[in-house]
């Protein structure tokens, strides 16, 4: 488990999502979601978030998501940005196809 620092990415504007990551040493991953479309898309938002967190190897963190109707690729972008900031690392660009 790599060390992380508190980090935030995204905004509270319409169509965006604010992702906050906090260290949670010795504890499991905890994800909190507030969303205006939680009943329709809550599971999809959480699935995308978990997928990105797994790619970054973040397992001991509290992740807060405040969603204002962000589309899937916006969610992915914001979680990636928050993870880079939390791990103080640069994004690894590679072709995904």
């Amino acid at each position, binding site marked *: 488990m790599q060390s992380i620092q508190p980090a935030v*990415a*995204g905004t509270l*504007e*319409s*169509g*965006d999502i604010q992702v906050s990551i906090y260290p949670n040493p010795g504890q499991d991953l905890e994800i909190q979601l507030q969303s205006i479309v939680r009943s329709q898309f809550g599971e999809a938002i959480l699935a995308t978030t978990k997928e990105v967190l797994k790619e970054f190897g973040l397992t001991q963190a509290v992740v807060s998501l405040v969603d204002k109707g*962000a*589309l899937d*690729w*916006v969610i*992915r*972008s*914001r979680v*990636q*940005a928050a993870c*880079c*900031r939390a791990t103080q690392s*640069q*994004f690894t*660009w590679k*072709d995904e*196809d």
Partner: protein
Amino acid sequence: MAQIHLKRTSLYVSGASPINMVQAAFYNEDCLVYDLEDSVPISEKDAARLLVYHTVRYHRPADKYVIIRVNGLYSEFIDEDLEAAVRARPNAIRLPKVEHPDEVRRIADQISRIEKDAGIPDGTIELWCNIESYLGLINAYEIATADPRVVAMALGAEDFTASMKARRTKDGLEIFYARNALLTACRRAGVDAIDAVFSDINDIEGLKEDTLLARNLGFDGKTCVHPRQIDVVNAFFTPSAKEIRQALRILEAVEEGKRQKKGAVTLDGSMIDKPIELRALTTLAQARAAGIPIEGGPNHG
């Protein structure tokens, strides 16, 4: 025949704003410029880069020419910007404040390396160069011909006037020479010329006068900073009935030449070469984009 990409309007949209990026796809601009430079705060460069990458790579509008404007060529962000921008596979990357042909060659080499790494055919991604200083203007032709990727140059009037110690005015007399000099370089190099932004988004009459001048000078299009400018600018770059008729005559002459297996084609005593044929195709594409029905012509573009 090369594919025709209209460049009447190119709309800047900030890479920091998801909602603006989503909405921008629904306006009538020909070219959509996702911006990583001036509209993105320093603290948000990393997040904007990811957002623009995902938007262009997986959700780009299919009917638009998509451009990513990267940060300054000597900024700390340029290498990361190019990694993201090339892999996103836009039609073009827009370079700000180009002043020397060597800068274009350096960036083109970087793009080639990333294209190869990403499995993108070499030379796929085109370049637009923003000319925003007296030095860039002096070197405009050399910049336009520095690499085959360069397909357009655009005048950045605010920075240009600052470099000249000139005052920016609405009638634009202070950029009249720059407009003509840039156009001359573009025409000589065979690349498109894009006019400067008209900054006052509430002055539609001023925008009309500015765009009329740009069109009459010979520009191929204009950069827009607000969606309300798009239809106004598009209207000025819609060809007249006379221009459409002439384009149809040119293309008919080309077709007839092909049928007769002629190597060279003339019309009204003048040779029709490839640039004239391409301009005729562009005229028809502009007309079709404006909703003008074209009858009797070849269905190019």
